[in-house]
């Protein structure tokens, strides 16, 4: 666990909460050993990282400084 892995995980949680508008109660109720499992338990499918990464990459192109100062830049235009 380091800042990079936590950064990815916290971004994903905020993506669920703010981008997909899922209440915390439901996210927590879904449980799961990994975030992908939580995503699947929420009935959203098995492509958690791919969809998340595609959205983030569109708004914050890889290789360029993101200039993001918070853990929750969502919602982003889909």
């Amino acid at each position: 666990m380091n800042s990079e892995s936590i950064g990815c995980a916290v971004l994903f949680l905020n993506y669920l909460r703010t981008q997909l508008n899922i209440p915390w109660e439901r996210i927590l109720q879904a449980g799961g050993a990994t975030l992908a499992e939580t995503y699947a338990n929420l009935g959203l499918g098995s492509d958690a990282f791919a969809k998340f990464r595609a959205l983030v990459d569109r708004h914050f192109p890889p290789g360029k400084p993101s200039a993001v100062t918070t853990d929750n830049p969502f919602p982003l235009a889909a």
Partner: protein
Amino acid sequence: MDNLIRLSLYLILGAVLLFGNIWYLRALRSLFPSSDYVIMPIRVVGKEDPGGALGIALAQMLQARLKNIAENLADAQQQLDPTRARPPIVPRPSPVARITFAPMINAKTITMPTSLLEPADIKLSVAGVEVSGAVAWLQNLLVRQRTLAFTLYSADPGRMVVAGDAQVLSGKGDGSIWFESAESQEKAISRLAYALLRKRLTSVGGERIDDLLSLAEFEAFADGLHEAAELSRKIDRGGQPRPEEFAPVADALAPVAHNATSLPELTYLAADLAERAGEAANAMQLFAEFKQAATAPGASDAVRALIADGTVDGKLAALAAAAKQAGAFDFAGTLHGSTEHFVVYYETALGSAGAEVAGQVLGKVEADYARLSELFGGVTLAQPFNVVIAVINGARDGTGGAYHKGCNDQTLYVGVKLEPQIDSDRSSFFVVTQAVDVFAAAQGKHAECGSSYGGARKRALAAELYPKEITEFATAKYWLDGARADFVSVND
């Protein structure tokens, strides 16, 4: 002559009638027990009981168990009565060269400031033991106003339902009894005895026990009081019970005491037992709760006296020092106060600034707890949190962070922000981060707190409650500006 014979016959007949009437009245009276209440044979549904023998046996078991519990309660109250004359305590001589790391046990006997319960004053007998048929029907009919009738339904294997009405015992209020049991038939009868006593008893302050304690709490309370009395008796005989003997009694009574705030005598007893068990943090919380409860209008003189004469303050000060000495906390702490779910300390070296932050944190913890419980689907925790506000990693600017020693460890060490100015929200934010781990562990369906998922969970939820505080700790940029590896499908 005829008149004399007739008079003699009348006299003889009158005497026979008189004796007959006396016999009749005695026989009639003997049908109805002199007890206050009659337990009808327990109706057993789902099991063979053709002659009704099982029902009568269960009723007799109930009668015996109820008497046993009531006597234990009365005995416990008498044993724990501080005004009771006791034999002088003669400690056992210790071997000269004995070295021990066990804490010194105070050989002073265990007491409660005042009695807790009014006497049960309940006399029971079992109906239908010696009579049957029409006579039993008549007995049932004539004593119906004071009968206790129960049904034990055991249709499913491993599960039974006990139901009945104890209105005649409780006098007023809800007299119904209904509980399910997955234990043995004997255990169910024992639990029924507790349920009946719970309906019957009132506190010395006049409150009904069934309004104050749930059935499970009452069982823990009655058993705990009995065990405490046994330990007290052991001390009276010159024995020195070990901390591990006090611990289970203290642990059983503490949750009951936390909930029954109108029974400060119980809180004091639980605090005393926790202290003897070496559970300094629990003892401190219970003494702090006792101190708060003792200020209530209905508190007894004996309870108030323990506050007025400094007994409780003295214990709290000694425990705070002991907590540090025993290594209970990583910092020398000062107890600031407690709520239902939190005991808040601050590092003593922080002085008045620590007290200020602790006071503000204390004012927010219950709302935060309620919100977290809501987010985690109504999860509640059996034990309270200990929060120690301290300078962590040498930081006084709020960047020190927070820690606890395991996902379900409820002693939380949280950093403090005193510079450039005091910001108690920073400490509250830290409290939430660590409390999230404990709630998640209690819910039992999440990635463990030390994983990247766990680290993200605590940050995201703490930011939900204290959104301004996350700014300095935001980590999203590290991933966005890095290789963007997949930590969604795997944990780090």
